[in-house]
């Protein structure tokens, strides 16, 4: 902060001081009121920490709600499209929830911590909607974002680092498992989850022990290349993993103003998460109707020729034909050596294997250039190494 400026009214996480010590760039952005690093020293190096060693991302600003009470399962089952009765204690579920019109409000993860005790994590805030959904259910909903510090510890050496800390017990966790362990006098939840599509864990701990845990973690990981990372490295990793970001790849329905700008889970490739076997959940009627009539949009993953990232590009079905959609996230993937993108296209186009054309604009020394690039619609994530699922994880 330069002289004369007023400090921005941003919250800091319990890991802020530690990140500040490592920070050489002073590039921060806002996330739900918190200040979060874009990058701490070099976004490329930070990205390679995720893929080749261990990247540690401060996840504390992630919105966290605690949902407890005898009706907690029934409540969540009505809230989200998935069948929550199948998510046992000790499991995490990726979920999406909709408004009555079947349009996605947000996606997130539900941690089944214990019988009738859940934590719902999402990028955006939803307290109002969650409370409205609680009418008629015997549940309590608490907003606990500030009470739970969180770290994403992601990368091939992440498990080995935890093992050196004496936390080898988490080696038994399969993807989307969670367990509670005592560490440093505190009860800490470890889950084998993440936003990178790689081997990795998320750690949920009391803020009071946050710094001590960070110090132990970085000491244990020193030999295996542990690095603190910022949001930019994570962004690249999540595009490779094919994950969606609210506000980027879809617009949360409660934030959309214009009609037609929202998306249903069927339009986001999440039909596998929509359980029409449930008698009632938010959006069920509208989604059943959409299922019968067909969707307007389709979310596709594109493998594009060339190396120019297709940022904000229009998509055409044929060269010279009209637009059928647009790219929402794009990057050159260093690990896949592919030019990749997530895109929204007219649902009549973009089946896996189809070829589409991407109209890429890029700039070279002030002048704009344009390239019509072939793109193939691919299925599944771009980056999906076996180590992501290997249990127990291989040591490094």
């Amino acid at each position, binding site marked *: 902060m330069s002289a004369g400026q007023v400090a921005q009214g941003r919250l800091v996480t319990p890991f802020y001081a530690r990140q500040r010590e490592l920070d050489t760039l002073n590039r921060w952005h806002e996330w739900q009121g918190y200040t979060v690093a874009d990058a701490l020293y070099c976004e490329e190096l930070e990205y390679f920490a995720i893929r080749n060693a261990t990247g540690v991302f401060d996840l504390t600003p992630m919105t966290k709600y605690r949902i407890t009470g005898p*009706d907690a399962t*029934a*409540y969540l089952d*009505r*809230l989200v499209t998935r069948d929550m009765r199948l998510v046992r204690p000790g499991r995490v579920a990726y979920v999406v929830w909709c*408004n*009555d*019109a079947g349009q996605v409000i947000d996606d997130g993860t539900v941690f089944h911590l214990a019988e009738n005790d859940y934590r719902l994590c999402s990028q955006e805030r939803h307290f109002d*909607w969650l409370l*409205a*959904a609680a*009418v*008629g*259910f015997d549940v309590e909903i608490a907003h606990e974002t500030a009470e739970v510090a969180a770290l994403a510890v992601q990368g091939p050496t992440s498990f080995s680092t935890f093992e050196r800390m004496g936390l080898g017990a988490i080696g038994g966790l399969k993807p989307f498992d969670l367990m509670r362990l005592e560490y440093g006098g505190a009860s800490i939840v470890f889950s084998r989850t993440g936003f990178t599509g790689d081997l990795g864990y998320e750690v949920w701990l009391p803020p009071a022990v946050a710094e001590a845990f960070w110090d132990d973690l970085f000491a244990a990981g020193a030999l295996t290349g542990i690095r603190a990372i910022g949001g930019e490295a994570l962004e690249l990793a999540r595009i490779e993993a094919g994950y969606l970001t609210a506000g980027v790849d879809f617009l949360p329905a409660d934030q959309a103003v214009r009609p037609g700008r929202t998306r249903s889970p069927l339009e986001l490739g999440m039909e596998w998460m929509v359980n029409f076997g449930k*008698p*009632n*959940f*938010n*959006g*069920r*009627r509208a989604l059943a109707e959409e299922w019968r009539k067909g969707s307007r949009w389709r979310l596709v993953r594109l493998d594009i020729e060339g190396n120019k990232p297709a940022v904000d590009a229009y998509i055409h079905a044929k060269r010279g034909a009209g637009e059928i959609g647009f790219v929402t996230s794009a990057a050159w993937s260093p690990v896949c050596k592919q030019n990749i993108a997530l895109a929204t296209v007219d649902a009549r186009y973009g089946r896996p294997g189809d070829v589409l054309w991407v109209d890429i604009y890029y700039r070279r020394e002030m002048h704009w250039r344009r390239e019509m690039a072939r793109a193939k619609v691919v299925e599944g994530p771009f980056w999906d190494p076996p180590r992501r699922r290997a249990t127990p994880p291989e040591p490094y």
Partner: protein
Amino acid sequence: MTERFDVVLVGAGHNGLIAAAELANAGRRVLVLEAGAQVGGACITREFADGFTVSPAAHLLYQLQPRAAKLLSPAPSYAARGLDTLVLGEDARIVRYGGTTVTGVSEADRLAYSSYAKRMRRFSRLLWRWLNRVPPRLGAGRRRDTRRLLRMALELRVLGKSEMREFLRLIGANIYDDVGENFSSELLKGGLCLDAVLGTHSGPRSPNTIMTALYRLGGAAGAYAVPAGGMGIIANGLAMTARTAGVEIRTDSPVTAILVDNGRVTGVETADGTRIASYTVVSSADPKQTVFSLVGARHFETGFVRRLEKLRSGGNAAKLHLALDRLPDAHGLDAEQLGQRLLIAPGHDAVERAFNPAKYGQYSSAPVMEISIPSIHDETLAPDGQHVLSAVAQYAPYALDGGWNAEQKRRFFEICLDTLEAHLPGVRARIIEGELLTPVDLEEEFRMTGGHWHHAELALDQFLFTRPVPGAAQYRAPLDGLYFCGAGSHPGGGVSGAPGLNAARAVLQREGDQ
């Protein structure tokens, strides 16, 4: 073995009975379950003091739609019909109006009233044409809905360009400005304002009080009737019609739950644990009670539940019943005059001032009233030579600051008596016994959330396509097999029969769609 019916009606209010009769006439096997000991809901007559009977909720008949009246066969006998409205001044002056004529005002007011009443009547006829149909569902993309909407637009357009503009201008406007522009007589302005706001949580200066005034003119266009034997006779007549059509009516059978299985209605359960199967349940209970108490919010989607939770349904009108040993000798008013519909509404400002405390959870210190002394026309209501006085007194908000207790009730009762005495001098000395029903009492006796006679506030945002809330405005709840047919649905409260008639049509239409 579980009994099975084609349709189960929850509640034997007049709308429930009408819907039941219509559905039975269409060949359905219909059961009506009523919680109380008698049919009628808020359209009943009962004793309130030894030998004195009164219609404790609706007390005048003026909105019954011709289609509903046709269901009453034989036609009920009326103790009085075509009653005028008399606005009582404190100084013995009175203004009397009815139809398109008014007396007790200046020549200018007399002329203005004639054209005013004609215009209101014209607009009310148009409005009620819409109110007598199932409103279109906007944005559903069905041709039928588009046709209905176009028809509404066409009916509006044939009023002519300037009349259409006038209608659209007035429908959202307030009655205060309109009567202020047209008339100079305080009593006339007060009376017309009270007509507009009776039974609502609004004052003359509140928006869309012209719409509520037009609403009141549906049916008899401002002429009031007293059925012989009280309002309960209407309900009894409807029950008879329903039974003749094959409807089974069970009283003392409160429905405690509407049963849902696998996302659709499958029947009801009554207080004694009896289960009755039916894939169609039509509820004349108010929408909040139906959804939150009888079905359970969890069977609906969150957006709908949230909208319904925010539905404004707090009543603001109290009912006052007095047993009188004889008619008061008020300003020399004779029985003919006292037998009309009497209003205490000293002026348009006075009505607004009466409303002011209600905005802040307090009752009026100078309430406004609609009074009927039905025993003048119908001797069966009271012992020989004695009389009953029934009055709607407002404002008395349901959510009173600190809540309604015996002391608050006694105080408001006294205020009402003082107000009555000021406008009908001598009435106090004639009182043998009295009863005051606050909205809380009305809620309990008539099982309507908030004690609101419209079940849900009558205002433009809870009207037509959005009554009670979007997603249920066509009588069909967003739960397969569940329908609404009470005052909380389109068009609203009052003994009009329109919700019941339209709901029956919506049920049959839905069956046709499937």
